């Protein structure tokens, strides 16, 4: 089959999917696949599994950084707002207190910091994960229903330079999965 026109080497094929019974099996499989030279792959589990991401070669996680930056913005916003209100926008003599009653401004500043960071941790997490993403090829595999229940999956994607439908499927079978499938686009 020739795929000159296609950007991808295997038209209509997202990848190959292997199903495992336990997280341990999955991790082992991932490591094997990685050492085999596969890079474009992803593992799926119904719960967080330690070391799984690392096993497929995932390194740095930027969520924390975003949250830190957001927190700082929160502080600036909060304090800035209050100082502007009480010193520039409409200065009032409130009970003889100075215009810059900074001790009284701490609580709101703090709350702004928390609010900004919290929202950012949600948003950045979703954004980096590319969610929302209601449609995804892996859902095309009937068995994948159990990825959110009790089964563990490894999917080698067709974009992987090393991907070769039959061989990859064969390779997956060698990892002792419960079953293997092609994942249609």
């Amino acid at each position, binding site marked *: 089959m020739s795929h000159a026109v296609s950007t991808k080497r295997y038209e209509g094929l997202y990848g190959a999917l292997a199903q495992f019974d336990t997280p341990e099996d999955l991790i082992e499989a991932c490591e094997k696949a990685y050492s085999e030279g596969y890079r474009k792959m992803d593992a799926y589990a119904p719960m967080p599994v330690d070391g799984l991401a690392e096993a497929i070669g995932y390194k740095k*996680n930027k*969520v924390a950084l975003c949250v830190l930056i957001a927190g700082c913005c929160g502080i600036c916003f909060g304090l800035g707002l209050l100082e502007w209100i009480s010193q520039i926008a409409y200065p009032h003599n409130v009970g003889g207190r100075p215009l810059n*009653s900074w001790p009284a401004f701490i*609580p709101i500043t703090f709350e702004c910091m928390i*609010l900004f960071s919290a929202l950012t941790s*949600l948003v950045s997490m*979703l954004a980096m994960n590319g*969610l929302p993403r209601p449609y995804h090829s892996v*859902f095309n595999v009937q068995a994948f229903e159990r990825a959110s229940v009790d089964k563990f999956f490894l999917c080698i994607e067709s974009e992987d330079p090393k991907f070769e439908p039959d061989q990859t499927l064969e390779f997956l079978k060698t990892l002792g999965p419960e079953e293997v499938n092609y994942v249609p686009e």
Partner: protein
Amino acid sequence: MDQITKVNENNYELPSAVIPDPGANIVLGGPQDYNSVTQRIAGVVYLPIKKAPKKWLVGAFLSFCFVNVLMLAVYMLFMRGVGIWGLNIPVAWGFAIINFVWWIGIGHAGTLISAVLFLLKQDWRTSINRFSEAMTLFAVACAGMFPILHLGRPWLFYWLLPYPNSMWLWPQPRSPLEWDVFAVSTYGTVSLVFWYVGLLPDLASLRDTAPYLFQRKIYAILSLGWRGSAIHWHRYQKAYLLLAGLSTPLVLSVHTIVSFDFAVSQLPGWHTTIFPPYFVAGAVYSGFAMVLTLIIPLRAWYNMRDLITLRTIEAACKLMLGVGLIVAYGYGTEAFFSWYSGDKYESFMYMNRVTGPYGFTYWLLILCNILIPQALWSQKVRHNLTLVWIISIVVNIGMWLERFVIVVTSLHRDFLPSSWGIYVPTKWDIMTYAGTIGFFMLLIFLFVRTLPSISIFEVREQVHHDLHSQPVDKH
């Protein structure tokens, strides 16, 4: 495609036989596997309405009635003004503020359980964190009503928000009430985020297991297409950890700020440095009480004794006992300083608090918050769920009384004897309060019907943990 196509044929019902409680050492009653826990927990949501426990139906209906009482009370309030409440000068704050503080306090246990215990890696938290986070949200919703309702001109509440208006006027940021606006709204938002993030993977599970297609579609939309990718999980855990880390100082700050409403003022009985810690402790105290009040019947109704085990309940009891003692310490300090400060207003305030017209409320609160809960020292009591349940309710009452004592007895006799007065709540005060309780309960009842009230994926982790830690008992 027909929206109510049944996509799987399992017919869900509660386990017929009563599942025994595995006891105080086991977090999760076995034998369980990833699938079984999913089915057990999600099953509650899939339960057909006709198979729902009668108690649930009755409870939901009653709370709905109380919601209507709330509506009536609020209607009257808006039509006629805060005069329908028992307020006066000097006692210009009454039930509204008491209830506000009480509800906010109850909310705190949720955040504490899900965030602090998470950071402290308490395994028993798993079975109740989802539920108590929901409780937090609903409690905050109730609390949030009161600051608005108690305004003389509630329709102008938005003046407390900083927005550019044609008067070129802004809120006054030195006022604790303004701090409240930010604290409570932040608390509400963050709790919601935290709760939703926790729900995300479980929503995916529901998406893939729900019996009806329309259910699946709804859960699919809510789950944002979560598919459990390893990398997603990695970021997810980081985000969750950060949220926990943020919620912890938040929960402390919120009730600290609420306590500032009083501590910042000049009033004897309010102007006290002990308030922030003692309010936070009180909040957690009432929060845990409320968790127990709700959990104990629910786990029985839904036959989940193996998922929410005695271990959890006992831990909660011990924690309650602990913070209860901190609260007791708070009372002690108040008494001590009223004497030690040598301030004539303070000492009078305290004497008036214990011997004045409202003296009985003070002694009642000592009974409810300090004396009765001491029973929890005994393991027998802790293992007798009826007693635990009663004590939890007693503590709820006690904590409400505490706020009553702080607000009313401090206000009704302050500095100038000439302006002393008395406060008597009206039926509208009581209806509003009862109404919010109904509102809260209704939300809880709806929640257990529509969302997994135990975090499924965390229970899976527990299963995983159990599988490896102790040999799965075979018999």
